[in-house]
């Protein structure tokens, strides 16, 4: 009886350790099962036009989600950022090089990038 109890405790301990080891795997497979998030228009515009520089901070382009890069820019207000993006600012070329982008599309992309701070 005593031996059975010890065996049970050790077995549970092993089980616990093994399940802790497989924690990452199970959480990633759970993530894979979840439905893909809906892509906003702003994100779509960002991916097609802005990501090539902004994801890498090419020529200092602020990276979405990087608070220290975006906070001082966001404080200027979206209207100012749209104007900068439209006309070019610092090392950023006008409209990132895509002259077909409208101010409304620039606004959506900027709002998407600002939203990544949260």
């Amino acid at each position: 009886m005593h031996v059975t109890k010890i065996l049970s405790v050790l077995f549970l301990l092993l089980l616990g350790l093994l399940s802790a080891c497989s924690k990452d795997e199970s959480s990633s497979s759970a993530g894979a099962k979840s439905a893909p998030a809906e892509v906003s228009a702003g994100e779509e515009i960002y991916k097609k036009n802005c990501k090539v520089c902004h994801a890498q901070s090419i020529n200092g382009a602020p990276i979405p989600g990087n608070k220290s890069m975006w906070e001082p820019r966001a404080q200027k207000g979206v209207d100012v950022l749209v104007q900068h993006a439209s006309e070019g600012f610092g090392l950023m070329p006008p409209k990132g090089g895509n002259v077909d982008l409208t101010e409304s599309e620039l606004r959506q992309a900027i709002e998407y990038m600002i939203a990544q701070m949260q």
Partner: protein
Amino acid sequence: MKHIIKALFFSSIILSLNGCGEGEQKAGIDPKIYTDSLFAVMKADRTNYTKLIIKRLGPAGADKIKPNEHWEDLPEGAPLPAQMFRAGAEAVTELTDKFTYSLQSTWPINSQNAPKTPMEKEGLEFIAANPGENFYGEEKLGDVTYFTAVYPDVAVSDACTICHNEHKDSPRTDFKVGEVMGGVVIRVPL
């Protein structure tokens, strides 16, 4: 029965000490973090050279220097940002063999800057097809296995596209601002 208890007991101890076998993987710096960090420094230096020297003192600013491909032939000539970047890569090659980096392209003006290994070619093709993404892989060259990272090099101004599109040795003449023109290949021996 005692043997079973002992086996279970020691298995538990070994598992808990081993940390699920992660101990070995966590030793040293992850090569991806290492190459990402190196690239961050390279990017920052290149951006600062472009902004603080070329833009400030060049034709768009005080007009005191002449950024030009043939800068050595001009009294006020200054190397283009890409040339400055290459000069850094060459200096690092003399300094250390712990890592190398180079600016390459599948459409190089100078054929020496074309990819040389299958992984470099794969990486450059990947970053061109996936703007904003990096490429990471491992390749064996000789007896050494390397971690190879490829980061995008983007046409950030008309100066980049005009120079590449109009250069007599350029194999491609339709680059647009915002396109991936090539990549920075960083290689670290594992």
